[in-house]
C-alpha cells in the first residue's frame, strides 16, 4: 500500500517533514493556480489602465504600459514619431516625416536636414515605458467621477456611522434587558434576514418615492441602516459582557443611556470594528439599490457611475479600467490591513 498514490490522499494527510510526495505537489499546484486565477485578471486590468488609448487595443498587447515616443523637430509644426533605423549595421534614432507605401522619409531630429527615404521594413518604432496618468485625471476632471467618488464616500461614511449606532442600541436592548416581547422582537429582526433586497426592491422603491427620497443620497443610505446581521453580531458580542458590570454601573448611579454609551459601547469595540469594516464594504460596493434610487448624474455613486460610464463609452476601455481601479483601491487597502478581522468575523458569524 505504501507505494500507492491515492488521488484523494492529499486532502487528509498532514505533511511529514523532509518528505515531499505527489499529494504535496498537487496541493501546491492547486493553490498556486488558484492564486494566479485570482490575480491575473485583476493585474491585467490594472496594467491596462495605465496604457494610453492608442496602446490599449493593440493586439497582441504588451505587458507593460508603453507608448510611441514623439519628438519636436525644428522646421516641423507637428511632433514627429521616433523610429529606430538600421543603416550600415548601425542603429540610429530618426524621426519620421511621412510614409509613402513601403518607403518612409526620415530626418535626424538633432540635425534636421534633407529627409532620407528608407524601406519601412528596416525601421521599428521607439517605445518607452509611459504611464498614461490622463486615464485617471481625465475622468476625474472632465466626466464628473470626482462627484461619484464624493457621493460614494458620503454614503459609505454616513451609512456606516448610522449602522453602528442604530444596531448597537438595538443589540444593547436585546442583550442586556429582560422585557415584555424581547424574544419576539429578536426573532422578528432576525427574520428580516430572509427578505433580501431583490424581493422587496420594487415596493421599497415605492416607499422611497412616498417619503420623497428618490434621486437623493439619503434614499440610498437610510434603508440600509437597520441591519439584522449587525444586530445579531453585536448582540452576540454584548452577551459576553458580564451583567455585573451593568449592575455595578447602575449602583454607580449611571443612567441607562450612560451605561450604554460609557460602559457597553467601549467594551463592544472589537465587534463594532468588524461591523464597521463590513458596512464600509457593503455600502462602497452597493449597486442594484443605488441604481434604482438614483437617476441624475450628479447623485451617482461610484458603482452606478462606473456602470453608466461603461454604457456610454463602451470602447474607451482606458478610462473605464482606470475608474474601475480607482474604486478598487479603498477595498484593497481595507483588505490588506484588516483581512484578519474580516476573515475571523466571517468565520465567527457565518455572515457576509
Amino acid at each position, binding site marked *: 500500500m505504501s507505494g500507492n498514490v491515492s488521488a484523494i490522499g492529499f486532502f487528509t494527510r498532514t505533511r511529514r517533514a523532509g518528505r515531499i510526495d505527489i499529494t504535496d505537489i498537487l496541493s501546491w499546484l492547486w493553490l498556486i493556480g488558484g492564486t494566479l486565477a485570482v490575480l491575473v485578471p485583476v493585474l491585467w486590468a490594472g496594467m491596462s489602465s495605465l496604457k494610453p488609448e492608442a496602446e490599449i487595443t493593440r493586439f497582441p498587447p504588451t505587458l507593460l504600459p508603453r507608448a510611441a515616443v514623439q519628438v519636436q523637430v525644428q522646421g516641423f509644426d507637428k511632433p514627429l514619431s521616433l523610429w529606430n533605423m538600421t543603416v550600415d549595421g548601425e542603429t540610429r534614432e530618426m524621426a519620421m516625416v511621412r510614409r509613402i507605401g513601403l518607403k518612409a522619409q526620415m530626418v535626424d531630429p538633432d540635425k534636421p536636414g534633407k529627409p532620407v527615404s528608407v524601406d519601412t521594413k528596416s525601421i521599428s518604432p521607439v517605445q518607452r515605458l509611459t504611464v498614461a496618468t490622463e486615464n485617471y485625471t481625465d475622468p476625474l476632471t472632465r466626466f464628473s467621477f470626482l462627484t461619484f467618488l464624493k457621493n460614494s464616500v458620503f454614503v459609505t461614511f454616513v451609512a456606516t456611522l448610522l449602522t453602528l449606532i442604530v444596531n448597537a442600541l438595538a443589540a444593547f*436592548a436585546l442583550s442586556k434587558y429582560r422585557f415584555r416581547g424581547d424574544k419576539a422582537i429578536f426573532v422578528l429582526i432576525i427574520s428580516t434576514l430572509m427578505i433580501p433586497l431583490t424581493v422587496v426592491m420594487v415596493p421599497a422603491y415605492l416607499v422611497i418615492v412616498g417619503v420623497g427620497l428618490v434621486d437623493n443620497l439619503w434614499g440610498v443610505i437610510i434603508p440600509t441602516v437597520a441591519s439584522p446581521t449587525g444586530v445579531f453580531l453585536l448582540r452576540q458580542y454584548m452577551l459576553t459582557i458580564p451583567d455585573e458590570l451593568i449592575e455595578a454601573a447602575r449602583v454607580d448611579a449611571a443612567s441607562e443611556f450612560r451605561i450604554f454609551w460609557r460602559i457597553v459601547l467601549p467594551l463592544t469595540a472589537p465587534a463594532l470594528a468588524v461591523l464597521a469594516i463590513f458596512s464600509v464594504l457593503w455600502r462602497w460596493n452597493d449597486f442594484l439599490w443605488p441604481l434604482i434610487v438614483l437617476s441624475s448624474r450628479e447623485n451617482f455613486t461610484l458603482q452606478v457611475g462606473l456602470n453608466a460610464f461603461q454604457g456610454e463609452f463602451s470602447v474607451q476601455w482606458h478610462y473605464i479600467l482606470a475608474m474601475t481601479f480607482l474604486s478598487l483601491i479603498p477595498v484593497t487597502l481595507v*483588505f490588506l490591513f484588516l483581512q484578519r478581522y474580516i476573515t475571523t468575523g466571517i468565520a465567527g458569524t457565518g455572515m457576509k
Partner: protein
Amino acid sequence: MARATGLADRALDLVMALFEAPINAVERLIGKGRMPYLFLAPNLVLFGIFTFLPIAIAIGYAFTGGTELLISHRPFVGLENFRKLLTCDSYLVPGSCEESLFWTAIWNTLWFVGFNVAATLLVALVTALILNRAIAARGFFRAMFFYPVLLSPVVIGLIWKWFLDRNGLLNVFLQMLGVPPEIFLLDVGWSRFFVVVVSVWFHMGFYTLILLAGLQAIPKDLYEAAAIDAATPSRTLFRITLPLLGPNLLVVLILLMIRSVQIFDEAWVLTNGGGPGTANTFLVQYIYQMAFAGDLRLFGLASAASVLMGLVLLVLTLVQLRLGKKAES
C-alpha cells in the same frame, strides 16, 4: 495608542453631552424598565418602513395593474398578473408562454443555479481541504482566495469583461496556443459558461472560509485515532472528514442556492444587460426591467414575480434554518 483612546473618549463625551439630557428626561418620564423599547425604536421603525411595509405593498401590488405608482390609482386585477406569468403551453419552452421573457429568465436562472452551486461547492471544498492540511503560508492563500469576495460586482464585471475582450488576455493565451481569437461574450454558450466562472471566482473564497472553519472544528484526536486504526487517507476523508463536515456542507449548499437565485449585478455588467439576446437574463433582471427599465413601469407584474421568487427563497431559508439548528445540536 493612549492619544487615540483619549481622542475617542473626547468624541464619546461630546455626543454624550449632546444627547444625554433629552434621553435621560425620557428615562425619568417612562422609567428604566421601558428604556429598551426606546433603544429598539430606531431599528424597528426602519425595519417597519423599509422591510415589512414593502412586503405588504408587494403583495398588494401583485393584484393590481396599470402603470401608476400610487396604489389608489391602480385598478384591481385579481390574479391577472399571476395568470399572465404562469400561462404556458409548455413550461419547458419559454416561447410558448404568454410572458415568455419570464420563463426564459426562470430557465436561465435554474441552469445557472445548478452549475454555479455544483462548481462553487466543489472548488470551495477542495480548497478548504487543502488549506486544512498543515500547509505553509495558509494565511496568505486563504486571504488570496478571499480577496475577490470584497470587490464590487460592477468592478468584477468590468475586470472580466476586459479579460474576455477580443483584445483581452485570454485571447492572447489562446493565440499563443494557435487557437483563433473568440469574442466570448457574444457567444451564447461561452457567455453562459463565463457567467458561472466569474461567479465561482467571485464567491468561492467566502464558502471556503466557512468550510475551513468547519474542518478546523473537527477534533484533531479523531485523525490521530484514525491513524492508529490504520485508516487509509481516502477512508479518513469519506468516513471521518466529510460526515463530520456534513452539516456545514448542507448549510453552505442552501446558502449558495439562496444567493445564486438572486444573481444579478456582476452578470448584468459582464453581459451588457443579459446578452447576447436574452441568453443571460436572470430572474432579478426580469423584475428590474419590468419595473424600472425604460418606460415599462409594470409594477404589478414585477411585484407578482417578486412574490413568487420570495416564496422560493423563504422555503430555502427555512430549510437552511432547520439544518443550521440541527448542525448546532
